[in-house]
């Protein structure tokens, strides 16, 4: 079976001083795949996710997105860090949704979504506006285009943030605990938008504590602990009959 690989991470290692945050983490994600990364807090899930678009610099290892080496260029036997402009170009293809939304507070919902395509991709304004308005409707916020982030609930802000990532037409979207900062009753509206996105074939890597979401949407589940990738496999297997006893313990603890 020949799958088109979108993300390939090999032996990604990250140190904070003497603390090993990531210890040779490897992962492969195919096109259209939804991968949920689960694990206790401090296990390195978010750090790994942030290495994929180089918001976090790694100490060793390599990551490819669509077969393009991320953040570095090979010269002989060394990998040289690429320039700011080059890195920005690579990030265009990698969407990201943050735990704390990080919408631009001085721009309306619509302006937040239009900012990237207009400023970064230099697309025509009219086209971007149409696409952004359609996206707002798609995430259920067609009537909130002119609202500033401070006038929206957490769930609404996160849906705008997802639309902002989508409007860049990325090949991959990274979700960093997208529902952890939300009031419990607002979680499902965000998960519904993510389910819709997954169904449309978007490649997604989701760091989450929502095992229910992982069970119903993810193709692959990865369990991380103490900076190591403990287990990766089809969602049904990892969540119901994991090979590692640690994974089993974690899933039991979350469910109890």
């Amino acid at each position, binding site marked *: 079976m020949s799958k088109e690989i979108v993300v390939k991470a090999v032996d990604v290692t990250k140190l904070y001083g003497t603390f090993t945050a990531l210890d040779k983490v490897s992962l492969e994600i195919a096109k259209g795949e939804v991968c949920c990364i689960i694990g206790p807090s401090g296990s390195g899930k978010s750090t790994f996710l942030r290495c994929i*678009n180089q*918001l976090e610099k790694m100490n060793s290892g390599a990551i490819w997105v669509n077969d393009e080496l991320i953040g570095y260029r090979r010269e002989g036997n060394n990998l040289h860090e690429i320039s*700011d*402009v080059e890195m*920005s*170009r690579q*990030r*265009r293809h*990698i*969407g*990201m949704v*943050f735990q*704390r939304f*990080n*919408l*631009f*507070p*001085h*721009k*309306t919902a619509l302006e937040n979504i239009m*900012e*990237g395509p207009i*400023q*970064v*991709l230099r697309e025509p304004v009219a086209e971007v506006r149409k696409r952004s308005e359609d996206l707002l409707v798609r995430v259920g916020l067609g009537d909130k285009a*002119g*609202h*500033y*982030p*401070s*006038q929206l609930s957490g769930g609404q802000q996160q849906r705008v943030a997802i639309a*902002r*990532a989508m409007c*860049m037409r990325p090949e991959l979207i990274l979700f960093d605990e997208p529902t952890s900062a939300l009031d419990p009753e607002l979680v499902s509206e965000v998960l519904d938008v993510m389910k819709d996105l997954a169904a449309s074939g978007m490649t997604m890597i989701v760091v989450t504590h929502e095992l229910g979401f992982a069970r119903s949407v993810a193709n692959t589940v990865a369990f991380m602990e103490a900076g190591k990738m403990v287990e990766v496999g089809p969602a049904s297997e990892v969540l119901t009959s994991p090979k590692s006893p640690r994974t089993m313990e974690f899933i039991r603890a979350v469910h109890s």
Partner: protein
Amino acid sequence: MTMPAPQAASPDQKYEIAHLTLVPKRHIGRVVTAALVLAALAALIRAFSVGQIEWSYVRDFLFAPAILQGLQSTLLMTVAAMTLGIVLGVVIALMRVSGNPVLSSIAVGYVWIFRGAPALLQLMIWFNLALIFPTMGIPGLFEFRTVDIMTPFVAAMLGLGISQGAYTSEVVRSGLLSVDSGQYEAARSIGMTQMMMLRRIVLPQAMRVMVPPIGNEVIGMVKLTSLASVIQYSEILHNAQIIYFANTRVLELLLVASFWYLAVVSVLSVVQHYIEQYFGRGSKAVSASM
């Protein structure tokens, strides 16, 4: 006010007062203090009116050509020195927060020196620069006599602008620090370069924090330009002085100058209010605008 004598109240009657009018507490203390302060103010006004001030001089010189020309110079110097101060402030602040240790140290040194010496003294150093550098220029290319370039205007602009830059850089730096790190990450995640991120995302948000103190500094600069009178720059205070040296109406002309400073500052306060409103957009929930 009399309270109805308590009846031999049955428990039911005790609760039948909910319909009575509620009378707010009287603030006797407030009335007394207000009266005292007003009386003091009236005495002060009376002192000025019976004092030996010839109000007709104040009225006549308020729109005298020399005064208006001085006002114009004051405004010109405010704009020139403040522009220089803001440009230097932004550059120095960016140097300070850049990762480059040399640039960052130079920025720290700049703030240390130019915030450490009185503005008046700096003005005088610039004005007297010819004493140590009789000529300036690039050897072989061009050369000027320092006294020709270092006019009162240039010396005042450099002195005021460069020392202002030291203060403004601290304002800009605090503005940059006030922007949440998540904003930088979000800007990077949609593929913005450093410059674009600074221009589109960081500075507009930093402005909200920077505008009130910078407005303060502009207002301060209006008055600081009066220092330039010492080096013969013909701003409003300097011109008022020249007039009262001739006609000896010292206080009258100082009041004329005060009037114009106050007028300019009042206008600027209103302008600041509107600028603050612009940069504050999105920061409060103004759902009425929808």
